[in-house]
């Protein structure tokens, strides 16, 4: 029951918010949804319930990790939204709250579904609900971004549907044939390898498009930079991971069939292509929200590399990295929203002297920068280092060197941009009447990134026993041993 409730409550509350008149009522529903979701998800993660819907809905270790990420970011995003919208002269849109809740519901369904067909339906639903959030501004740029996002991701996901069907065709005639994960894993050793390989490639390209792996990433910088900041945080921190989960599910089945080696190579290639493409576009990137978006492409590449290296430690590192990246990226997008409120500019050149103008925002921005670039003692350092050690242990010396080089380029490129924004002289005199971050709205804007910065720091210093055990059992699902 609890899993059904977890999936159903955002949709029901979203429908309620749709019919409710008045902004205050909708806000109350939104906050309530965030709280209910957090409570239910915590219960599921602490005490995993048995599968429901005939095994199609369940919370295995992988699902629990991604459920935790989605729920945490949404709850913080709900708080942030009110502060941000309170300070920003955004147009008010009645559909914002219902659409956000549908978006949450479809992401929750995606992370909990253990049926590849159901997963597909959920992931396509995330595209549709988030597209309307991207063109929230109705500006020319946001419309263009929404159009690219819709058409490229829909086509990409259509290919993943073809891949899903190919996988069903690979099931031998005798076996219990459904696209439910347990059935697939059981039937995997007898599957027709030709169909299964085709299926994996289609799923990789399809879900890879949605995950933002280069060269299918072209929609991502537009969509993530044009969306309002709370939405950007969810798109980068939560939604990309959902698509990654789709690739992991396909990888699970392919590994169970003994074709893990076949599956690892394209993952490695796409991973390094993504890291390299992102590094190239990070250099002298003039727009700081696009900078963050390209950084997402880079980190999705790292996830693909970690999975592609294979083996327990690398898979463990990749999953830990997914968690760390979500925390750090949401921190950065939340803070970028605050910076935008202060300077009314998304240009790196339009922001300077943040340390003097708003010291607290500057500290958060700096923490986000150090965290996302994997500087110790933040969490991403641990996960990036884990993946590096796994690569070295696997004898991939050249790949390790390339990995380090690309990380260094990203660090330098982002460092140059962030130094310029944080230090230097604040623009004087301010062209527009300076907007100050004050009052309750400011607290709601700054508290969520502060929580995330603390979490990112804690994960770099100390990994709780429970979390580590959860990551280990999830890595085991990916065919890692220990």
């Amino acid at each position: 029951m609890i899993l059904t409730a977890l999936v159903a409550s955002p949709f029901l509350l979203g429908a309620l918010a749709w019919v409710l008149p008045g902004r205050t009522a909708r806000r109350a529903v939104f906050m309530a949804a965030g709280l209910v979701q957090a409570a239910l998800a915590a219960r599921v993660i602490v005490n995993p319930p048995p599968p429901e819907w005939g095994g199609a809905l369940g919370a295995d270790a992988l699902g629990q990790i991604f459920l935790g990420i989605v729920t945490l970011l949404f709850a913080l995003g709900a708080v942030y939204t009110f502060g941000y919208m309170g300070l920003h002269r955004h147009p008010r849109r009645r559909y914002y709250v219902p659409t956000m809740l549908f978006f949450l519901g479809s992401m929750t369904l995606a992370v909990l579904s253990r049926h590849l067909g159901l997963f597909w339906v959920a992931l396509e639903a995330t595209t549709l609900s988030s597209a309307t959030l991207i063109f929230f501004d109705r500006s020319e740029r946001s419309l263009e971004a929404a159009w690219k996002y819709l058409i490229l991701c829909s086509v990409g996901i259509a290919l993943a549907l073809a891949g899903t069907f190919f996988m069903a065709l690979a099931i031998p005639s005798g076996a219990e044939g459904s696209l439910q994960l347990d059935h697939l894993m059981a039937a995997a050793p007898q599957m027709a390898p030709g169909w299964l390989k085709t299926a994996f490639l289609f799923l990789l390209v399809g879900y890879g498009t949605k995950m933002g792996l280069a060269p299918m990433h072209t929609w991502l910088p537009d969509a993530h930079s044009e969306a309002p900041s709370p939405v950007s945080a969810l798109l980068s921190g939560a939604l990309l991971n959902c698509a990654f989960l789709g690739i992991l599910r396909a990888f699970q089945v392919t590994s169970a069939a003994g074709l893990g080696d076949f599956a690892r190579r394209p993952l490695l290639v796409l991973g390094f292509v993504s890291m390299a493409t992102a590094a190239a576009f990070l250099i002298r990137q003039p727009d700081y929200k696009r900078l963050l978006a390209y950084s997402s492409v880079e980190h999705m590449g790292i996830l693909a590399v970690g999975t592609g290296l294979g083996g327990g430690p690398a898979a463990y590192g990749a999953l830990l990295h997914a968690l760390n990246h979500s925390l750090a990226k949401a921190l950065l997008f939340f803070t970028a929203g605050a910076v935008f409120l202060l300077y009314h500019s998304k240009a790196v050149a339009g922001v300077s002297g943040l340390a003097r103008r708003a010291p607290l925002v500057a500290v958060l921005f700096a923490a986000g920068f150090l965290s996302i670039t994997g500087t110790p003692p933040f969490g991403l350092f641990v996960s990036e280092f884990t993946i590096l050690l796994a690569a070295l242990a696997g004898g991939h010396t050249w790949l390790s060197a390339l990995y380090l080089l690309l990380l260094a380029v990203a660090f330098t490129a982002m460092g140059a941009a962030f130094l310029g924004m944080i230090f230097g002289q604040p623009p004087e005199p301010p062209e527009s009447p300076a907007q100050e971050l004050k009052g309750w709205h400011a607290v709601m804007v700054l508290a969520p990134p502060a929580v995330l910065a603390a979490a990112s720091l804690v994960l770099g210093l100390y990994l709780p026993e429970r979390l580590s055990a959860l990551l280990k059992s999830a890595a085991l699902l990916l065919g890692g041993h220990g």
Partner: protein
Amino acid sequence: MSAWVHAILVAVLLLDLLLSVTSRLSVLIRGFALQAVGIAALALLLGGFDSPHAWIVAGGTIALKATAIPYFLNRAAQRTNARRELEPLVSYGTSLLLAALGVLLAFGLATRLPLEARRAGFLIAAAAFATMITGLLLLVTRTKALTEVVGYLVLENGIFLFGLTLLSRMPLLVEMGILLDVFVGVFVMGIVVYNIHRTFDHIDVSALTTLKEDEP
């Protein structure tokens, strides 16, 4: 496999060729809807007339893909004054040639894949691949937003056709979810196209080029 199934699959293949040469949006929409009707009929022929599952899938396909989506697309075309695709990236002759090559490629793929005749008939796979290729062709070579939406729908038709061979293995919930996703997808795309038309006064997506990287 009955003669009816063959006849419908051949019709689907011919519609692929028609879709790749027509410049009129109304013909494109009608061609897509006819394909959807064919798929609904195939769902019944393959799933059996006594199977409620097959009836629901066929009914859903007719209601959403052959009725609601074409109605919605036609309305969007009227509101944005889109009648013809005047500037495709390749000429219609080349388009036809590419589509014909696509059909050949589809048959080649269908023979090459380790296909079990028992489950997925050779001709179904070939027709499904050909329809997918036609959809991709429309997506790549056309520049009007609504034509691209039809391209996406044709691609999805091909995939759904492929899925028909799995009718017994797929829970109804998933098939309905797929249909619903496509419907809502077209609805959302329609809204974006309408807003693009209002903001830019055209729906030529090749002219949407503000968002790109400036040379550093």
